[in-house]
């Protein structure tokens, strides 16, 4: 096994065991922290497909995170308030079923990624960053002004949505669910990176001329990668909203986009476990340093600077060394 795989296994195991220990010791807050780390990691696994494989520096992934969050908020609020969402062509009262909410979150964020991608992928470099950022801001201000769903104040959902066979209000059970989703998506991301699609998308980042010369369309490859990436981040958004039982425009903010990217840069761009390591470190810093000082972001900034300057492969690269070429 390569060092990277061992590191990945250790990190994933730790992320699973810490909440179990906390559960035994009766410390639900630690479980919540781990759940937060798992969900943020999932959001970053999504971005890592666009950024790490496709080289698409999207500063607008909060768009999909927020769409996932609002998919949950909107569907559940209708049930909570006994107001049908629509009555035509059939009566639809909203939903508090996680699988259904996830499906909606994934489909709507995939659609948004398709439309944004069609426009943004005509450009590259700084223009691409700016267009994705601009879309994020559009959704941000739209959600602020959408008073039907809480506007600036956001939406509170008092009861966590349900999953068949689980008591999702039990922190350890909800953690287990989020953890399982993260592991499944990581497996998917691992396969995707080695699949024909992953190979072609990676080549489209490194040498678009070559990709065209063998008859493949780099633009379409990027678009498909961007859609998959947005859909995963959207799924994370739905889980994040369920964790907090609250959604607000903050989920759409450019700070959120920036944080998702920070997880990846911290952990290692294009490394399978980079997002997990980055999100876990971020949540720990936020918790321990945030308790000591309001200005903990300064320390995060310094860490980020150190990683960018001295460890281009992120923390995963630092520990596991250069990525071995896939076999």
């Amino acid at each position, binding site marked *: 096994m390569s060092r990277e795989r061992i590191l990945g296994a250790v990190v994933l195991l730790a992320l699973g065991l810490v909440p179990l220990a906390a559960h035994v010791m009766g410390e639900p807050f630690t479980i919540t922290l781990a759940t937060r780390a798992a969900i943020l990691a999932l959001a970053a696994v999504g971005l890592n497909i666009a950024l790490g494989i496709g080289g698409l520096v999207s500063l607008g992934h909060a768009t999909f995170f927020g769409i996932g969050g609002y998919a949950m908020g909107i569907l559940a609020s209708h049930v909570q308030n006994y107001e049908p969402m629509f009555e035509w062509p059939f009566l639809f009262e909203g939903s508090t079923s996680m699988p259904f909410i996830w499906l909606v979150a994934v489909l709507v964020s995939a659609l948004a990624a398709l439309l944004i991608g069609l426009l943004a992928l005509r450009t590259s470099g700084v223009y691409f960053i700016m267009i994705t950022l601009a879309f994020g801001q559009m959704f941000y201000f739209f959600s602020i002004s959408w008073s039907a769903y809480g506007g600036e104040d956001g939406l509170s959902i008092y009861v966590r949505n349900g999953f068949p066979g689980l008591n999702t209000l039990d922190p350890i059970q909800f953690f287990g669910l989020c953890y399982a989703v993260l592991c499944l998506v990581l497996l998917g991301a691992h396969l995707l990176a080695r*699949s*024909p699609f992953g*190979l072609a998308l990676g*080549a489209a980042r490194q*040498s678009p001329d070559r990709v065209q010369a063998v*008859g493949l369309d780099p633009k379409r*490859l990027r678009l498909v990668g961007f859609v998959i990436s947005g859909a995963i981040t959207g799924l994370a958004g739905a889980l994040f909203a369920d964790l907090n039982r609250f959604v607000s425009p903050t989920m759409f903010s450019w700070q959120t986009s920036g944080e998702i990217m920070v997880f990846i840069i911290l952990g290692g761009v294009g490394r399978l476990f980079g997002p997990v390591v980055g999100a876990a470190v971020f949540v720990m810093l936020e918790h321990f340093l945030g308790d000591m000082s309001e200005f903990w972001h300064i320390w995060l900034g310094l860490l980020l600077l150190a990683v960018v300057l001295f460890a281009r492969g992120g923390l995963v690269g630092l520990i596991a060394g250069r990525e071995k*070429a896939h076999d």
Partner: protein
Amino acid sequence: MTEPVLETRGLVKSFGALRASDGITLDLRPGEIHAVIGPNGAGKSTMIKQLSGNIAPDEGTVHFLGRDVTGLSTMARARAGLARTFQVSALAMEDTVLQNAVLGALGASSSPYRFFRPALKRAELRDRAMAALERMGLADHAATVVSELSHGQRRQLEVAVALTLQPKAFLMDEPMAGLGGEGSQHLTGILDRLRAEAPILLIEHDMDAVFALADRISVLVYGRIIATGTVEEIRRSPEVRDAYLGDAS
């Protein structure tokens, strides 16, 4: 006379005041190596890029396999069977030699939208890629990352990727550049056999290779073809000597 595989008529391309292609007419016939020679900046690469579809000509047409492809993209031309190698290697530098070759095989299969089973575990892609690498003598380096290859090996990989496409015609932009004596000889042998599979439009500065390989030679100077003929005709042509060959021959 047999139908040409690739044919261009009246190709014109200007960059501002510079006419990089000034009415180029030329064809590539089945089974031949047609070499295009000319001084630096004559417009050879610009011509190749118009044939491959990377840049659009201002005037003129390109026909491939009897079909007008002037308006088709690079991708469409590649899928129709036109393979190109680059003057400056265009490879996925972080990937392995095998991955680059598999990319070619993937292009030939034109179904990249498969997301689960690893590309390198797919026998149909892998076999095709390995066969091309073996022909180019790169099989032993299959697992090497391209950025760790020597310059010469990268040039060989350029050709190997083109081979994976099993194309109907090759466009090769200075495949020998920087190969060194032995490398050039090796590649000369390979191209010599390759013409039986698909004709090659060969841009090359290495005159030994050109004279050894070419069935016909065209001389491009300032965007114009000043002469086309057999090796002997070109060697003897006084205009070509004046314009280009100097005392090299």
